[in-house]
């Protein structure tokens, strides 16, 4: 808090300190502000570099400062700082814990983020989609009659899944919750953006180097190219893992979008018969994407289990996202296998579990570690927009 005389009275947030300690094992209290971390970080800007200042704020329990700080999200947790820290304070892990606090703080509604961050709520969080989907299944026939879209179903000739969970049901189920999750995600991003802007008005005004739109486009390009990942040294195998998961996920998203838009998509007039045959280019892409996510996810899990010095300490927040992702792909492939084996009702049960996992991954996105895609991109856009990214700013200034 700033007083009239200009002195700053620090009000430590004890609850925040306690939470950080639980997440990092109090390592951050070892920091003696030498600045090795900020000097060694390959992606930290030259002006006001991170993570030294964040380490001080963390020790002082300055929650407001940390949550409004975009630098926390510029960090890609490669742990170059953690392995070089002479005190073993593990700045990389501290910033990860602060990011978790950020997700909890900016989420809308907040209680959902609290649930997602605690293991004891797992049964509830998985139970909600399971019960809702189960009810939809139970009342499917009555719903179909009420909506006037009932189709007589006999013994299935083509072994599609739609005989049990028709497309209209899945599309509307995931559509409704998808819109809710989207609204929650946008709310979180807007809250975060306002907080960063608010912090700016209290401190030094920063020069504007780029419009928000242009910054966003540039950030998307840099995220696609994994620019920040490539400059990290210590945990460099994370680049391969993240590339696999990232592009595998995009491939799966593209196939899903195309299937959903099938009836209205002008590109899909000929030969888009669903369910696909195994050698359909779409099926091949879906399988390839699933395989890429599976491999990338396995790499990440392996690293966290057996190379935790470099990968960083792992909390429930990290594991929840990784294992959900793993469960989605694993149940997906099990479902596909059972489908080819024509095992009924096993394949339907596997499909049901798969859908519950997909719900947990996508609908809880704004509340889980998956939200890093929202907040990190927001912070990166802000960094470009404000000229925080030094190199980018000097390049623009010199007109190159």
């Amino acid at each position, binding site marked *: 808090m700033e007083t009239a005389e200009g002195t700053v009275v620090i009000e430590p947030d004890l609850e925040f300190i306690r939470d950080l300690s639980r997440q990092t094992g109090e390592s951050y209290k070892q920091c003696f502000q030498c600045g090795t971390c900020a000097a060694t970080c390959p992606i930290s800007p030259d002006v006001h570099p991170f993570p030294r200042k964040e380490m001080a704020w963390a020790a002082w329990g300055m929650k407001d400062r940390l949550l409004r700080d975009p630098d926390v999200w510029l960090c890609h947790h490669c742990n170059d700082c953690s392995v070089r820290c002479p005190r073993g304070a593990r700045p990389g892990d501290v910033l990860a814990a602060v990011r978790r606090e950020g997700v909890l703080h900016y989420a809308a509604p907040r209680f959902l983020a609290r649930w997602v961050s605690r293991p004891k709520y797992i049964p509830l969080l998985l139970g909600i989609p399971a019960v809702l989907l189960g009810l939809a299944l139970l009342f499917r026939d009555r719903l179909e009659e009420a909506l006037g879209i009932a189709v*007589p179903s006999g013994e299935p000739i083509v072994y599609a899944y739609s005989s049990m969970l028709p497309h209209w049901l899945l599309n509307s189920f995931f559509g409704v919750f998808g819109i809710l999750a989207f609204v929650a995600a946008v709310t979180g991003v807007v809250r975060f953006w306002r907080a960063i802007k608010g912090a700016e008005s209290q401190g030094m005004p920063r020069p504007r180097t780029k419009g928000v739109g242009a910054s966003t486009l540039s950030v998307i390009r840099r995220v696609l190219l994994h620019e920040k990942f490539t400059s990290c040294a210590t945990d460099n195998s994370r680049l*391969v893992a993240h590339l696999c998961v990232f592009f595998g996920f995009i*491939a799966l998203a593209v196939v899903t979008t195309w299937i959903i838009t099938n009836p209205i998509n002008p590109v899909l007039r000929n030969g888009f018969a669903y369910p696909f045959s195994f050698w359909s280019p779409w099926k091949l*892409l879906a399988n390839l994407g699933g395989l890429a996510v599976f491999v990338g996810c396995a790499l990440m899990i392996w*690293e966290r289990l057996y190379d935790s010095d470099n990968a960083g300490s792992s909390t429930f927040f990290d594991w929840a996202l990784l294992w959900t992702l793993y469960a989605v792909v694993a149940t997906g492939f099990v479902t596909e296998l059972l489908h080819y084996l024509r095992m009924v009702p096993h394949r339907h049960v596997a499909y049901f579990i798969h859908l519950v996992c997909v719900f947990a991954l996508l609908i809880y996105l704004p509340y889980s570690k998956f939200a890093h895609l929202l907040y990190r991109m927001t912070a990166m856009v802000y960094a470009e927009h404000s000229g925080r990214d030094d190199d980018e700013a000097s390049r623009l200034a010199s007109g190159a």
Partner: protein
Amino acid sequence: MKLSNPLRTGNTGRVVALCGLIILLPIGYSAVRALIPQRSEVPQVFLEKPLAAFQDCVEETSYMRVHHMDLLKQLREDVIRDGIRGEVTLEQCARCHTSRERFCDRCHQAANVILDCFGCHYYPEPGSEAQGL
């Protein structure tokens, strides 16, 4: 486990471009197929229409399309296992659907559903009886 990373030599861009290309391939494939007018590769299931004289089946066409096998199984149960010979018989089916090859088999071949009934059983093709009407 430490992986030596081939991507660190600065060819991440090429890898990303390759990923993008692979993802765009099926879209291009579908776009090309949508643009080029072509005869459908899906075999046209030509079903021989039942004889015009017999308009009324035992059930609606939409019902028969998905439930004919259930009715046939019921018929089998009734006749073979329970010894009940009702009014509906297989011969009655054959009066309208005069040819098994041109009606049952064509659809079953297209849908790749293998019929094993007529490996043993005789499909009564009435020929003269039906055509006489």
